[in-house]
């Protein structure tokens, strides 16, 4: 269940004295479920964790198992994985931009309320999302919870002909995405900036989505070094763990991190759209993440079209993956941030241990810091208005709970 969250804010004499964001986080349950399962099962099992980003879970899972087994997926098979992932970015970002985030800026309580007055805009958002669905289905077999992915590649590789309808939709989607950038760039953004510590994957030749090393402002490290840098700790008010980067709590993953760290690798059209929207390579205003998401939709459409155009059909749907006793690490960029998987595989091919670090738990501490910064100067506002600001501050980062847009239970106790 993506949508369960609560926020408790307590303030005294103009200062926030307690702030707790509670997030229900299913991956912990899945880690236990994975132990003892066959090494081929994580892509299918972990895809069920999130209805919004199953491809991210499949890709991180596949890469971790393949790393453990010494296999590598390259060439056209890797291109097909990229294609499916771009489809998921388009699906997820379009949903968030149009139905969850834009209503905050236009003064509507939900995307449904917005649709009554802005039918054409919401239809454009749905058309964009549909383009993503079609792309995921063309490669993955179906638009949600794709069934065609396996460790080593795919059960059946789609042909160029299979991808033609998706390409046709993507041409239109790219135009819609460019229009989306122009639209959201005109919103009225609160004048807020935070001193974020960003973390995102970095790839030598791509705006990293499927794989790469782990980049921060301070340098890079390999995905296999993740456990040495990222440590998760239990906090009493949430089932989500708080992640610390090199001993410091509160770093940020997601579109803002990707843009700030890797913006030079966006497609030329996406770079141009970003510049036109007033982004200059640096963006530390979380409210403007809606612009970055729109730019990433342009990039995803662009890159997907480029891949389809040049794709050589693979000569086999998957590479062989031979079992060996080892531990493997895999990470990819889910729409809402870096998603890390680690699996230890036994000599019999069964999983001995699993670790999944989703973007939401990495961002949780940072979201709480955003909330404190945002709330303190606004404590004089009526509780209802303050709650709206809290919801907006959380939605800026598209955590899993934002799927249930306005289900967030906000308690503000200010005296």
């Amino acid at each position, binding site marked *: *269940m*993506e*949508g369960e969250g609560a926020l408790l804010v307590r303030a005294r004499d103009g200062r926030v004295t307690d702030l707790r964001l509670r997030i229900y986080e*299913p991956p912990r*349950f*899945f880690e236990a*479920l994975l132990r003892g399962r066959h090494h081929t099962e994580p892509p299918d*099992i972990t895809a*069920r964790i999130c*209805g*919004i980003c199953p491809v991210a879970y499949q890709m991180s899972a596949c890469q971790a198992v393949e790393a453990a087994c010494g296999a590598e997926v390259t060439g056209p098979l890797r291109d097909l994985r990229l294609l499916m992932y771009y489809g998921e970015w388009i699906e997820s970002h379009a*949903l968030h931009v149009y*139905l969850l985030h834009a209503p905050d800026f236009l003064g509507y309580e*939900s*995307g*449904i*309320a917005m*649709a*009554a007055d802005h*039918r054409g805009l*919401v*239809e454009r958002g*749905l058309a964009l*999302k*549909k383009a993503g*669905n079609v792309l995921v289905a063309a490669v993955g077999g*179906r*638009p*949600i*919870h794709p069934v065609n992915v396996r460790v080593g590649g795919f059960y059946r590789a789609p042909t160029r002909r299979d991808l033609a309808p998706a390409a046709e939709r993507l041409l239109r989607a790219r135009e819609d995405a460019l229009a989306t950038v122009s639209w959201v760039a005109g919103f009225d953004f609160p004048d807020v900036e935070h001193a974020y510590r960003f973390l995102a994957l970095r790839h030598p030749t791509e705006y990293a989505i499927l794989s790469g090393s782990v980049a921060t402002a301070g340098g890079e490290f390999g995905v296999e070094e993740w456990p040495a840098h990222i440590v998760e700790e239990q906090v009493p008010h949430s089932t989500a763990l708080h992640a610390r980067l090199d001993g410091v709590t509160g770093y940020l993953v997601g579109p803002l991190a990707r843009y700030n760290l890797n913006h030079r690798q966006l497609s030329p059209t996406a770079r141009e759209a970003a510049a036109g929207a007033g982004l200059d390579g640096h963006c530390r205003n979380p409210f403007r993440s809606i612009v970055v998401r729109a730019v990433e939709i342009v990039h995803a459409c662009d890159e997907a079209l480029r891949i389809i155009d040049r794709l050589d059909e693979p000569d086999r749907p998957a590479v062989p993956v031979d079992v060996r006793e080892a531990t493997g690490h895999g990470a990819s960029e889910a729409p809402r941030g870096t998603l890390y998987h680690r699996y230890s595989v036994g000599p019999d091919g069964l999983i001995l241990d699993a670790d999944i670090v989703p973007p939401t738990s990495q961002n949780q501490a940072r979201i709480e810091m955003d909330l404190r910064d945002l709330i303190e100067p606004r404590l004089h506002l009526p509780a209802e208005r303050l709650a709206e600001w809290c919801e907006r501050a959380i939605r800026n980062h598209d955590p899993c709970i934002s*799927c249930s847009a306005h*289900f967030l239970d906000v308690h503000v106790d200010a005296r």
Partner: protein
Amino acid sequence: MSTPGSTVVIGLGCECRGDDAAGLEVVRLLARDSLPPSVVVLENYGDAAELIESWTGACLAIVVDAAMSGAPPGTLHRHSALGLAPTWQGSSHVLSLADAIDLARALGRLPRRLLLLGIEGEDFAVGGPMSPSVRAAVARTAEMLRGRFGGGADQPPMR
């Protein structure tokens, strides 16, 4: 998008959450038999936008989902979308079925008639099996729909 005049039956759910797969299982059973050409059977894994796309233009849409109202497990709830019962509010899916209906209404994309069938679930645990009472209700519901469609006439299954 559905062909005008057609009937679309949509099974909604998540197959990894025990009884939440009830709607999916109903349409899978239904799809095993030959149905009139004007009847389309679809699975949906919780994508509200796809749901709207599926029923746009349909004469009749029947959505089969799991429900959780406190009724005995396996109880079949029937509602017209015009009076959506709280049973479906707060769905575990990304945007709820209620959201999809409200959004479709705002966009003018509701089917001419929309019927919701909810099978009361008992256990929605991740990775769990479907409860026996729900499995039996799934079979009964598929049989009922098949009976209505199987006669060849494209009659709505119930009023």
